[in-house]
């Protein structure tokens, strides 16, 4: 464009060049503007712009034919060079005039640097704003998910039986479905329990009437006893499996109440409770993920068996280590022979208790121990009788 500035200001009359010292574009007038203008006639330099303080050799200027332009980048001298050759008439002759504009790269480089810097700055700012927005959006999405995960973990531990709190509509359906599932599970569990109890009640009362008929043959007595044991074992099956997520419960009140009850039934026996806690945590040390009904069944049968075998005392010993909780019941009876211990510990056996005529208490203990992945151990007690221990391992 600058060459047109020179072109528009140039005049030639009678072979005399008329070119003002100052042209329209100020950049060609101000020294050190980075721009220089040159006009050549017949390879001779006839004009240079006022901005030229250190002229470049005219031979360095590119040459162009009439009507053509030429652009050169001189990297050695950091120059952009442009030449346009136009033809003027003077005294009926066509005179070729070469107009050249020289631009120092440093200005372009400077402008380029400013542009690049601005680009980076605004780019970085925009990126930061977008990143922040994305982070905020992500947090708003993750937070309800985290809340959902936390509640699911609590439900898994049995601490809550329904998800609560407000969720975005995308998660609301999941919450609703999970709550329905939990509610249904509770309902089914209660229904099965009631069914079991009602069935037991319906069967056992007529069995009582039958059993106490006069002149009942021993064979019939035995059959009635068999029916009773089947009812007892099948209808009192542990509750786990009906409810996959089990609440942690404190077993100490269960043990204490069971011992108080057994004290009423066996008044001559002295029941004691001994605790040995070495676990590093100070709270919830006696909690187990076990259904309350199963806990009563397990400990009730264990302590009842011990009371029946005992001469004068039964001790319930609770040992809590970091990874294990052990409930051991000691009695001062005659103990359990080694051969019988193996029978009791073998899984899947239809077992009797270790003293006669006591129903299927140890079978229930074995069933419940298996179901909760605990270990049953029978050894000798320091009291001289048996020590039956149930060992729970924490994950």
């Amino acid at each position: 464009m600058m060459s047109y500035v020179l072109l528009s200001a140039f005049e030639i009359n009678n072979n005399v060049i008329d070119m003002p010292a100052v042209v329209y574009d100020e950049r060609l007038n101000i020294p050190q503007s980075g721009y220089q203008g040159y006009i050549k006639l017949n390879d001779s330099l006839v004009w240079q712009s006022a901005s030229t303080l250190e002229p470049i050799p005219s031979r360095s200027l590119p040459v162009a034919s009439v009507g053509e332009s030429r652009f050169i980048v001189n990297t050695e001298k950091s120059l952009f060079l442009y030449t346009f050759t136009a033809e003027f008439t003077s005294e009926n002759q066509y005179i070729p005039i070469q107009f050249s504009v020289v631009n120092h790269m440093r200005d372009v480089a400077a402008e380029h640097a400013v542009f690049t810097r601005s680009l980076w700055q605004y780019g970085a700012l925009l990126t930061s704003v977008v990143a922040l927005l994305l982070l905020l959006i992500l947090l708003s999405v993750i937070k309800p998910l985290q809340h959902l995960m936390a509640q699911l973990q609590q439900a898994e531990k049995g601490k809550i039986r329904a998800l609560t709190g407000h969720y975005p509509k995308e998660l609301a359906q999941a919450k609703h479905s999970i709550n329905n599932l939990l509610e249904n599970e509770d309902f089914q569990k209660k229904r099965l329990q009631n069914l079991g109890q009602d069935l037991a009640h319906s069967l056992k009362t007529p069995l009582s009437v039958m059993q106490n008929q006069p002149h009942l043959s021993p064979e019939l007595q035995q059959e009635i006893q068999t029916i009773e044991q089947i009812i007892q074992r099948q209808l009192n099956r542990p509750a786990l499996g009906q409810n996959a997520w089990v609440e942690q419960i404190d077993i100490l009140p269960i043990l204490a109440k069971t011992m108080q009850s057994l004290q009423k039934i066996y008044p001559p026996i002295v029941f004691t409770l001994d605790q040995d806690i070495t676990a590093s945590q100070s709270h919830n040390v006696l909690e187990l993920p076990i259904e309350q009904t199963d806990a009563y069944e397990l400990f009730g049968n264990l302590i009842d068996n011990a009371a029946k075998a005992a001469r004068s005392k039964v001790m319930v010993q609770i040992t809590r280590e970091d990874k294990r909780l052990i409930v051991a019941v000691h009695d001062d009876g005659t103990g359990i022979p080694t051969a019988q211990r193996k029978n009791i510990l073998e899984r899947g056996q239809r077992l009797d208790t270790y003293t006669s005529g006591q129903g299927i208490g140890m079978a229930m203990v074995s069933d419940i121990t298996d179901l909760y992945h605990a270990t049953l151990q029978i050894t000798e007690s320091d009291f001289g009788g048996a020590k039956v221990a149930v060992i729970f391992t924490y994950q």
Partner: protein
Amino acid sequence: MRILITEDNPKLLIQLDAFFQEQGFSVDLADDGERAQFLLTEYSYDAVIMDLGLPKIEGIDVIKYARKKQITVPILILTARDNWEQKVLGLDAGADDYLTKPFHLEELLARIKALIRRSAGHASSLISAGPIQLDLTKQLVFLDQKELELTAYEYKVLEYLLLNPNKVISKTELTEHIYDQDFDLDSNVIEVFVGRLRKKIDPDNTLKPIETLRGRGYKLSLTQSKDSV
């Protein structure tokens, strides 16, 4: 001894009634919780057999009600609910023993007698007072080691007096514990039984085992010795 039996199964109720009457008990019956609650508050019993799954008021609630009213009669729960949680619940509510169905009548009888004996403070089934010894299990009476022949009602009177040694027992109370609910409480037949009992235990009128407190009732005047185990 007077016993209250609550059971909603009519066949079992009849069976229990007949059995305990045969054993010399006076028996009152209730087939629902509401009636059981009423009878417990109206009459004094030596023992109660309580079913749990009762109509109108649950057995456990009847037990809780009785204990809240300071009715200390020994209660044995007789029920089909045999899981340990239910047993502990029942005993925690105030029952003193628990027997699950099906059961043997003899075992039920033995446990009821043990409850009565323990509630009277006797660890053993043999009670001694002066020269008299009473075997609660076999329902036999000995005077100076020799067996004494008593009629059923004479035995019942002596048994009640021996199980409540430090109490003044009114004629009404004695009648209530000897006879069923429908008996005429104004009858003087108790005086007749006490009189006959005195003659059999103390023919020479030297021992004076039973004291009459005029206008109040009767009291055992013999000192009980330590229970033999």
